[in-house]
């Protein structure tokens, strides 16, 4: 296996952590934010037959979860290539 080069490894890890932080903030905002804490306020708006807060809680948050993982896969594959960790 490749001997981990300290500084490259550290930079890779730091960029990875930045991605994680951003994606997890979105994860938190759609589920706990839009789906629970601000659901009542969002329920004043509508998306077709759905009240918006209810839609986020029972539909929207799940779509965003799936999307988040695929964005993560895309970002990490790109990062792996950038630092030469892909295989």
């Amino acid at each position, binding site marked *: 296996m490749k001997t981990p080069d300290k500084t490259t490894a550290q930079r890779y890890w730091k960029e990875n952590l930045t991605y994680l932080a951003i*994606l997890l903030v979105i994860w938190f905002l759609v589920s706990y934010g839009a789906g629970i804490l601000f659901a009542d306020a969002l329920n004043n708006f509508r998306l077709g037959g759905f009240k918006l807060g209810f839609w986020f809680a029972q539909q929207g948050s799940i779509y965003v*979860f799936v999307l988040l993982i695929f964005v993560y896969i895309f970002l990490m594959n790109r990062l792996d290539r950038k630092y030469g960790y892909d295989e």
Partner: protein
Amino acid sequence: MDVRIWTYIIVGLTFALYIGIAIWSRAGSTKEFYVAGGGVSPLANGLATAADWMSAASFISMAGLISFMGYDGTVYLMGWTGGYVLLALLLAPYLRKFGKFTVPDFIGDRYYSNVARTVAVICALLVSFTYVAGQMRGVGVVFSRFLEVDINTGVIIGMVIVLFYAVLGGMKGITYTQVAQYCVLIFAFMVPAIMISFNMTGAIIPQIGMGSTLSDGSGVYLLDKLDGLSRELGFAEYTQGTKSKIDLFAITLALMVGTAGLPHVIVRFFTVKRVKDARMSAGLALFFIAILYTTAPAISVFARTNLIETVSNRDYASVPKWFKNWETTGLLAFDDKNNDGKIQYVADPEVNELKIDNDIMVLANPEIAQLPNWVIALLAAGGLAAALSTAAGLLLVISASVSHDLLKKMILPNISEKGELIAARVSATLAVCVAGYFGINPPGFVAAVVALAFGLAAASFFPAIILGIFYKKMNKEGAVAGMIVGTLLMLFYMIKFKLGWLGAAPSPASEWWFGISPEGFGSVAMLANFIVSLVISAFTPDPPEDVQQIVEEIRLPSGAGEATH
């Protein structure tokens, strides 16, 4: 054709398929037995993970539960999907890079301690046994309702099937049967949902039908109609719910984190070749899970509306045939309190005359919506696929905990490959028998016990694994203390508020800490675990240099190699 004949045909065909796959994919080595040889494709692993994860509860009970909870049912929808984001981002890639067979393997090696390994084994067994009992029961229930055999006979048939492919094929057999089971269960779930959605709203996609107008020409949105009906009968509005924000928050968090900490889910990510594949299979798994999880709330809305419109204020003498059918199972009960011969279905328990079990909403839904008999039979096959796939995944965790973590790693380190494989098969067999026993004699607290499984997974594994990856200086003293405190706190709260001490009545909800229910307490116990781990590790020596080196290495994706002992 008769429903029963359809059921025998469809269930028979799916069982033949599972057994065929088991014979084709026998495990020849411990590596094949524990991690399917480590060469599963991300697509197959995604499908298998989805089936592994979606249990009898997801398939049979969840939509019904939500249809009575309305907005509050959100905790299950978000809680049982959002955990995959944590799993994909925080756990799966690193655990795959670490490259071992089991979760206690990681805990034991990362915290360089057999005490930590033992604590992890105990937690894994506790979580998996509580969970598997519910699955075997689910198998029995499906059999008894659709094939009119006794529940116990149903459990035994289920045991024999699982025994066959789990013992013979290990993880390899389980993986490929789970792929088939996912296809069966999602087809069985979607067909009635699509038909009902089309009948009620004209939309073919249930997720859209749920937010559409009714096709009766009134132009009223389905959800507004249901809110209106609920109000009239004295229930809370469907889209509003009654739980407090803090409890919703805590339950959702406990279920998400618990999902990410369940050993039978984590271990699926050890079966792929590269770190990249682990990420991809997590994404695909959630995609496949989301198909069912975004359809379920739509079914809840259709079923609840249908139910109210069909039975409310109707003459008991003129109820449809399905009503009488389900009355005989005891899942539906009518008690004419005011002797007017009509069914009063209202929120006020004094006046309400109809008792409905959650499970009916999915199982009887096709009958209520007057769908053809083969759809009803399909549902039986789907329920069985959901229960069997989850049971098999759990049994594998139990057998690996015994044969690998206890026997190979601690008691008999010199055991041969062949000996370990035999031990794995023997422990899988014993585990099936224990699970079957609990399926036939279910502990009276099955529902409580499943909540406990999630709480325990959240309170024990999740912090230990996260800190093990993201905090290089986390040491064994901190991790062990954290796991013990988290687990005991969770058990204490569960016993105090859900089970009661030695037969005494549980304490009332008014005494809940911070207003958090036992189902949501896993979040608090998890926080306690994190805090204890961090504080203790600050006052005890750093982990050895070679362990810190391991942490550096698992953070880099390349060179994952193959899973080894």
